[in-house]
């Protein structure tokens, strides 16, 4: 039986030097900047605010709202970030939304600063060979680890399933795998997500 290794991820932010002050320059940057930048604004942002009922779930939406594009703010916030398998798909979807409507691409806005994530993955030295060890391991790890296994790793591997679910399916726990994979990470805090997963594992 395969072993599950709990990992975690620590990150910091790096300024790309790119700022947009019109929808046109925003769209150009969106098309050109690397995945780590898209990841920062869509996902890392979520981690910063995951325990608060904020208006939007990503920094792009806040910028749109602040600059008089409330529809774009909502549309970007409604993108299914968990359903999307890899960042290229999400990028395409965002570009489609921007190009679909007849927005004013020259209207001067407050600058948007594009930031990229600098990530470092660490092996926590905690392993599991069965469900009970997995449960114990999960109890010991923090929310950075949850974020890595549920979000980052899935995106890196372009997988429709998060790490936990993939491993659980491998050991024959398909139902638990499916339940964990369908948790809406954007509607609750990662502390609650951890509790929810533990409950599923105990059921």
């Amino acid at each position, binding site marked *: 039986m395969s072993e599950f290794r709990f990992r*975690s991820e620590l990150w910091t932010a*790096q300024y790309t030097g790119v700022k947009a002050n019109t929808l046109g320059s925003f769209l150009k940057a969106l098309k050109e900047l690397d995945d780590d930048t898209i990841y920062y604004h869509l996902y890392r942002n979520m981690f910063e605010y995951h325990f608060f009922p904020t208006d939007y779930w990503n920094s792009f939406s806040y910028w749109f709202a602040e600059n008089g594009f409330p529809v774009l703010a909502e549309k970007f916030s409604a993108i299914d970030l968990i359903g999307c398998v890899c960042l290229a798909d999400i990028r395409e979807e965002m570009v489609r939304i921007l190009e679909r409507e007849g927005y004013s691409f020259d209207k001067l806005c407050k600058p948007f600063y594009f930031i990229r994530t600098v990530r*470092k993955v660490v092996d926590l*030295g905690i392993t599991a060979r069965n469900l009970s060890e997995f449960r114990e391991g999960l109890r010991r790890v923090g929310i950075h680890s949850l974020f890595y296994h549920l979000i980052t790793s899935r995106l890196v591997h372009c997988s429709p399933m998060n790490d936990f679910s993939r491993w659980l399916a491998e050991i024959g726990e398909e139902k638990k795998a499916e339940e964990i994979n369908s948790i809406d990470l954007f509607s609750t805090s990662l502390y609650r997500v951890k509790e929810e997963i533990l409950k599923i594992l105990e059921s």
Partner: protein
Amino acid sequence: MLEEYARFTDSGTLRELELIARKLRGVKVLHVNSTKVGGGVAEILHRLVPLMNELGIECHWEVIRGDENFFRVTKKIHNLLHMPDKVSLSYEDILTYMRYTYENLSRVDTDPYDIVFIHDPQPLGLIVKKRPGQRWVWRCHIDVSSPDEETWRFVETFVNGYDAAIFHIPEFVKDGVRVPTFIIPPSIDPLHDKNRELERDFVVSTLERLGIDPGKPIVLQVSRFDRLKDPFGVIEAYRIVKRRMDCQLVLAGSFASDDPEGEEVYREVLKAKGEDPDIHVLNLPPDSHLEINALQRAAAVVVQKSIREGFGLVVSEGMWKGKPVVGSNIGGIRRQIIHGITGYLVNSTEGTAFRVKQLLADGDLRRRLGENARERVRHSFLIIRHLKDYLIVLLTLLEGREKPVDLLHAP
């Protein structure tokens, strides 16, 4: 010491830091700034340096030296980087800066270190000492986005000689910075006298000692006496609130004996206070950490109505004490307050008064926003997060390091 922070962090965080730090064993790090006492930079280094050592990274801290003349010039550079003034940097100023930089080159031994962090503009010129294989980082604690252009041109040559720079927020980065730039907000230390838990009795006795009524709601702004902190706007907002609600305003701060403008602003604030017994203007000694802590804990609402702000960590200090903060919608304050969730961002005196009234009228709202505020700081603005960011920067810079060139034995 690290374990003392365990109660403020998520369960896995300290372990993760230890694991990341293992990859940095044997690495030697030096921090250089211009003072061991006073100011946010020294405060952070006092804690950050021992924490890095505890994690097994050999970390030292050196301070450059200079006389009054040198620090007059560096203060001028600091101000001009912040915003243009009538007079730019003079030829004599540049000579003074370079002369003392040269003297400090022999005083500060940077050679044994793998990574050198230079804090702020005062020691910036030490970069000429960089040897092959080393990584030098400029940690800028000020907003240089719209500086006096001549001063920036002087500084830019040094800045772009570094391997990386660190700014608090991207808005503070000048377009001419061409080195990799990390965005790392500053942090507060929950174990510092300014922030540690206090007994209720101590809080009450501090209020009484300062002549403040512990039974009447307090609206508080903590800041040095400086026009850019808009103490007059705060008094105006308080007067609007006071028409409908009984409360008292506390303006607590200090001014250095060598800051004539601070004293002048203090006198003007006293004049603006007039005969109102519910306005308390407190000029406290700079080391009044426990008093400030007590005032923040006693406040019903904390205000930070700055016109311009470095980062405004005093906002996080208030939030850490579970207080909703009404702050100006600018720079670092915007970064700390989540509007409507941890406090309110405001754009005018009237807006400040409106939000203060709203909060004074609703204890549940204050409690809810205050709880969120504390959680926000716990997650994003404590020194442990700051330490984590530094470790990632260290790893990133060292991973990209080419082998040092051995000039002595080069073919």
